[in-house]
């Protein structure tokens, strides 16, 4: 017994000592050197290598353009190419299509598919594949969350109701020619078509959706058998028959799912990940302040808008002057400091990606003006005595999603200064969505919206038009209705002239800023950090981690260690 206890004694001491030694080892917050590249800047692209990426989310429903969600945007984009795509300036350009034309007063979009495009199964892409893929995606049995975007295609109503065998509006006019006939003219159709939903799939997909289908398209990367380990990882390999000669450069791209931000950082430092975009705020600050790492970071485009949504059918926000007061009372620069590396001040209804016009007035922080609006509304507030304003507490709905709780408290403080007292109500995300979009259920809440496609209609139509109002599931959470705004949004759809469309959207934007169904507050962007050997990467304005033009130029491990970078 004595000997046993002695060994236990020694073991306990060793364990304790290890813990004491280990803690300081783990507390070194100095960032290591970036891992060097083998060649200098300006070197030619090289083929080969695997790009390692990670995300805290998961590919919930596999890789299929017909059931894609936000989590699958990046991989789906790499596996499936479309007739058209968004370029680096978010403009619609041809991809699998050689060219297209518009006829019939904007009711027909006719695409000529490039000849000789090889899909992952080795077959040549034809117009028939385009039609079959469109019908598969829009069939009523398909769990496609974006199908209704294509409701303007002629025959959609009958097809989606199961009353027609085929989608009449998509017509194959030759081996390489396919026409989309619309019920009414729509200038945004190319933007919609560049989304994932209707991207061509291989013949193995058939004409009906199946969960068991092995993804197969015409994109730069393909999914090998066993490439998707659900809940764990995804490996895509180069499509050897990709129609753009020489591309992609990478042999493979690998994602690891469900990885926490801390683990991403550690793996990135060790060279096990090559590029990260989900750092903690503290780590983001470290990387952006470190002169060695700062040049390796890049800001993705602002594609999200945030604002305070005010229910225009509930008091006190049924009074436009109260809404104007709110829009003027919120100190957006103050709000931005909640997350300065990721937030930018927003004073209008559109993200800066779409509308970067310094001459546009928008909404501004102006405290005296806010008090004046409260006076005009009939609820004058005296800041010196704290008397006046709206008498009752105003329920403010929010869900716990990190920064929202903090920004809500700042808004609460700002509005208290003009006599509006918010009572914060924290609920789960699913409850938040239900209540926020239910008529009469929420006076005020934080609204946010991410562009589905890079056009103002992606914001205006779902959030602020009268058509978007519903008793339940109303995306128009402010239940705002303005005939002039509706008219402008509708005309913009019909207008083919880009200059005229811009003028229409400018006026619509101005109406929203003035009548303030939302007090627009901030935009939110993602920050990417890459190792120096990751070449050819630039954030895409629409697609997260668009890496089809990336190549790797990593120096050997001996050089990495000699320079003090990397840990593996």
């Amino acid at each position, binding site marked *: *017994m004595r000997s046993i206890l002695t060994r236990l004694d020694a073991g306990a001491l060793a364990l304790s000592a290890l813990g004491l030694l280990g803690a300081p080892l783990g507390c070194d917050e100095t960032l290591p050197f970036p891992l060097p590249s083998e060649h200098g800047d300006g070197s030619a692209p090289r083929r080969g290598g695997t790009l390692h990426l990670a995300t805290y989310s998961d590919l*919930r429903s596999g890789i299929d353009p017909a059931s894609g969600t936000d989590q699958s945007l990046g991989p789906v984009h790499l596996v499936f190419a479309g007739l058209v795509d968004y370029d680096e300036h978010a403009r619609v350009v041809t991809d699998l299509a050689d060219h297209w034309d518009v006829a019939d007063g904007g009711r027909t979009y006719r695409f000529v598919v490039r000849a000789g495009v090889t899909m992952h199964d080795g077959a040549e892409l034809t117009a028939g594949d385009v039609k079959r893929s469109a019908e598969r995606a829009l069939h009523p049995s398909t769990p496609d969350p974006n199908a209704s975007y294509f409701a303007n295609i002629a025959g959609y109503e009958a097809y989606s109701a199961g009353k027609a065998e085929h989608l009449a509006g998509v017509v194959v006019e030759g081996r390489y020619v396919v026409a989309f006939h619309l019920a009414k003219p729509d200038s945004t159709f190319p933007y919609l078509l560049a989304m994932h939903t209707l991207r061509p799939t291989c013949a193995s997909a058939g004409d009906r959706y199946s969960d068991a289908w092995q993804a197969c398209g015409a994109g730069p990367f393909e999914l090998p058998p066993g490439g998707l380990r659900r809940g764990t990882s995804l490996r895509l390999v180069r499509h050897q028959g990709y129609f753009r000669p020489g591309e992609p450069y990478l042999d493979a791209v690998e994602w690891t799912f469900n990885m926490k931000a801390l683990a991403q950082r550690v793996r990135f430092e060790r060279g096990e990940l090559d590029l990260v975009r989900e750092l903690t705020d503290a780590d983001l600050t470290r990387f952006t302040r470190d002169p060695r790492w700062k040049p390796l970071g890049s800001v993705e485009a602002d594609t999200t808008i945030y604002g305070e949504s005010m229910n225009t059918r509930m008091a006190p926000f049924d009074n436009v002057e109260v809404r104007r007061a709110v829009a003027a009372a919120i100190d957006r620069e103050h709000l931005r400091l909640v997350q300065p590396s990721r937030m930018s001040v927003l004073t209008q209804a559109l993200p800066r990606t779409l509308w970067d016009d310094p001459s546009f007035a928008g909404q501004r922080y102006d405290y005296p003006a806010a008090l004046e609006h409260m006076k005009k509304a009939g609820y004058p507030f005296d800041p010196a005595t704290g008397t006046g304003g709206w008498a009752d507490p105003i329920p403010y709905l929010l869900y716990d999603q990190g920064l929202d709780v903090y920004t809500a408290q700042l808004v609460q403080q700002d509005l208290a200064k003009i006599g509006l007292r918010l009572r914060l109500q924290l609920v789960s995300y*699913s409850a938040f969505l239900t209540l926020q979009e239910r008529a009469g259920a929420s006076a005020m809440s934080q609204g946010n919206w991410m562009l589905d496609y890079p056009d103002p209609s992606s914001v205006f139509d779902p959030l602020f038009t009268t058509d978007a109002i519903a008793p339940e*599931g109303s995306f128009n959470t402010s239940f705002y209705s303005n005939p002039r705004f509706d008219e402008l949004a509708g005309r913009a759809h019909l207008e083919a002239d880009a200059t005229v469309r811009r003028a229409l959207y400018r006026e619509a934007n101005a109406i929203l800023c003035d009548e303030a169904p939302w007090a627009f507050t901030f935009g939110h962007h993602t920050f990417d950090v890459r190792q120096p050997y990751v070449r050819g990467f630039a954030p895409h304005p629409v697609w997260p981690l668009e890496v089809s033009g990336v190549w790797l130029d990593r120096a050997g491990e001996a050089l990495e260690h000699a320079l003090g970078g990397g840990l593996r």
Partner: protein
Amino acid sequence: MTFFLRRLGWSVFVVWGVVSIAFVVSTVLPGDPARMVAGAQARPADVARIRRQLGLGDPAVVQYARFWKRLVHLGPRVVDTEADPAHATCAVVLPLGGSAVHIDFGKSFQKRQPVVDLVATRLPRTLALAAAGMVLQLLLGLGSGVFAATRRGSWLDAFLVGSSLLGISTPTFLTALLLQYVFARGLGWLPIDGFGATLGEHARCLVLPALTLGVYGAAYYTRLVRDEMVVLLQEDWVRTARAKGLSPAQVVLRHGLRNALVPIVTAVGLDFGALMGGAVVTETVFRWPGLGELSVKALLDRDGPVILACVIVTSVMIVGTHVLVDAAYARLDPRVGHSRP
């Protein structure tokens, strides 16, 4: 035998009750599962179509009846998912002549996979983590507890008791982060998280989460074992054993530890049942793809079939371990068992 049949009957009732409560709660909570599937920005027409596809348009009572009808039913011995889509989400659990008993949890709203497949994949991982964590808890806890009890009043006793207090007081996530920082980031000995692709990688990835559970549980068992042993070692029959000339090890292990095992077995049984339900925080922090991680995501996503399957598996595990604990009582102490109500 009657005792165990009675316990089994109660167990079935408990599982039914828990699952029914889970069903009601998940139904009455505000929030639309179809919306969670379609995405926050999916338009109402698309959400409505997906709701119909998921069978969520039916009244709750119909959904409840359908769930129990599908949960255990008779079907073909061999399921051809292509030819027989009605049984595509079933697991065959017991062949009975030409047919077989099927279990069917349905299809996950979010992952669009049969839930039985998800559970079958996740359960062994959770079992491995629970077992490894429990072994570490017992090794460290029993050892430290016995050691502290036999050195009662010494500085080592004080150190171990103090350390166990620290261990119990430290939240699991903090222990997890500390271990990640020291052993993965600092020393680089072990993966910071993940599951790995090979058996060797699985084992390496298992060490830190198991240690996290081990540290917390060991602290608890140290105190439990020490306190029990301190009392028992002062009993008359222990003094008699010493007087008979037994070695200190025999006295401690045979007469002290064995008698201390009854409350320890209770605690182990309860803990293991809870761990089988998934060590939620540990699995999440270490990206260990077990039932706990699955449950949390299902709950956040309002993935009804997965929530109910996790509740069933968890409650069966907990109830099952309780029955086993009762059986262990009878072995350890013959006075307990058959006469219990």
